[in-house]
């Protein structure tokens, strides 16, 4: 009876395991097949003959390396800037003493409740007027701004908890305020920096809507955008399409598998803040 119950509890978990993972296994396996195998001879099973040529063709014929580079530049530069600006901002709000800091903090929080759709139209016009269309700046500047409210809130929470004695001793030692920020405060909040870095890099790497509206130049497209292009090109060649999708997904999945605990924490930490 006890055994049966344990099995009963396990069943839904493993059923959903299959629902969650099998589509991906199916994608990888058809990326290694040709059309005949996918459609007729072997639609469900593992590939019998690994057709690596799907991958070499996908990599060499299309702009995949370029998309990767664009995504990497945009995501990493904006992540670094978000962290830098958010640390500075939160320090001034959480640790320094001045009159309007509570209002300024609230002003920054408003941004968390604004859906992208409400800034999209004027933003597209701003990007055009500043002549940023089809440059890295067209994505980096908005990504930094969008990432700020959330990151500031996380850093603010961490910095609030630092004991005042740390600052006092730095002050006694004659460090000026900038050195104190860099050498005392920043090292203390390193765990928060890791969380924010993972969260922001991931969201920027996968961001689609703004990139779709702000970038039209083939050479500037990020990965999610570039993949869209294959849909038209490759619609009859499932093997090639599968190869492109697998290549594009691999880096993030590997990063996730290595840092799964941290990624899950970073992605869900927002729940403690919003709501």
């Amino acid at each position: 009876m006890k055994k049966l119950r344990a099995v009963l509890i396990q069943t839904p978990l493993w059923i959903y395991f299959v629902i969650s993972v099998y589509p991906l296994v199916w994608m990888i396996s058809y990326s290694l097949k040709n059309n005949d195998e996918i459609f007729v001879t072997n639609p469900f099973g593992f590939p019998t003959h690994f057709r690596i040529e799907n991958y070499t063709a996908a990599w060499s014929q299309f702009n995949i390396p370029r998309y990767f580079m664009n995504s990497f530049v945009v995501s990493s530069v904006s992540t670094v800037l978000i962290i830098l600006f958010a640390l500075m901002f939160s320090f001034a709000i959480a640790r320094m003493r001045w009159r309007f800091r509570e209002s300024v903090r609230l002003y920054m929080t408003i941004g968390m409740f604004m859906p992208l759709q409400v800034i999209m139209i004027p933003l597209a016009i701003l990007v055009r007027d500043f002549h940023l269309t089809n440059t890295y700046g067209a994505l980096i500047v908005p990504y930094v701004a969008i990432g700020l409210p959330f990151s500031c809130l996380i850093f603010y929470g961490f910095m609030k908890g630092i004991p005042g004695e740390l600052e006092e001793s730095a002050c006694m030692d004659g460090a000026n305020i900038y050195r104190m920020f860099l050498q005392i405060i920043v090292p203390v909040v390193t765990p928060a920096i890791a969380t924010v870095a993972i969260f922001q890099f991931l969201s920027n790497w996968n961001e689609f809507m703004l990139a779709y509206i702000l970038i039209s130049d083939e050479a500037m497209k990020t990965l999610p955008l570039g993949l869209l292009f294959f849909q038209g090109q490759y619609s009859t060649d499932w093997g090639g399409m599968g190869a492109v999708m697998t290549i594009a997904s691999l880096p993030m999945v590997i990063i996730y598998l290595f840092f799964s605990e941290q990624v899950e924490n970073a992605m869900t930490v927002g729940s403690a803040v919003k709501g």
Partner: protein
Amino acid sequence: MNRYLSNKKAIALFLLPALLIYSVVIIYPVLQTVYRSFFNWDGLSTATWNGIGNYRELLEDPLLITSLRNGLIFALVLAVFQIGLGTVLALACADPRIKGRKLLKTSYFIPVVLSVTVVCQLWIAMYDPAHGLINRLFNALHIPYQQNWLTSPTVSIIAIAFVNAWQFMGYQFSLLYAGVKSIPEQYMEAATIDGCSKWMAHRKVTIPLMKETYKFCLIVAITSGIGAFVQMLIMTSGGPGTSNYTLTYMIYRYAFMESNYGYACAVSVVLVSLSLLATVIINKTFDRNEA
């Protein structure tokens, strides 16, 4: 010390970059969107004042009803699938007898880190009427339920919402699982000693104590439904016809395809108002139950 920490020049320097970029890219556009929603404007030439004309026109736009209906269906699919099934999975996974918990949690979360383009294209293949996994599965099980998932005007919105629900299931699951784990084990023990079955104890103890988690999960599900767009764009281009339109799709079409910026801004204002309204209502409802 006080003088040290109220160094005006330093404060200004620390605040400036964040405040500047945030004000220009977030706050200014939000105000612009509201302001421009009262104008006829093509984005280039001078705008002309139109009062509440855009909003009046919007009320008679048949796309608005379609979009609101689709947003609602999308939100419901997310709420039922992610929160309902997510709760069952989170409670089961928290059971001490479960083996392979780490593997399960990891595999649920993998789709979350994938690009939405990859997920949508994978599901286009899954839904393919002739070669897709879904129809073949029904075929293999001899259930006559095969259909053109993405081209049917009635089923496609649910099929599309399911893709989003599938991708972000792991996210909601993590939140719910953390919620279950945050409840002290003594509570469950006390309830079972009092003669509650495990299921009963979860219903009476665990779930009520997870109110904050549910509140957040529900807000995420409902606001994602109201704002849905990318899945429709990639998988069906809003079609067949305009049957898969959402508010964001309307904004996209009116602003970026028809250069009717003023009108699109009015749609944006409706969208953000609905999102905020939903958030407030959910917050109020959950807090009232507290008293």
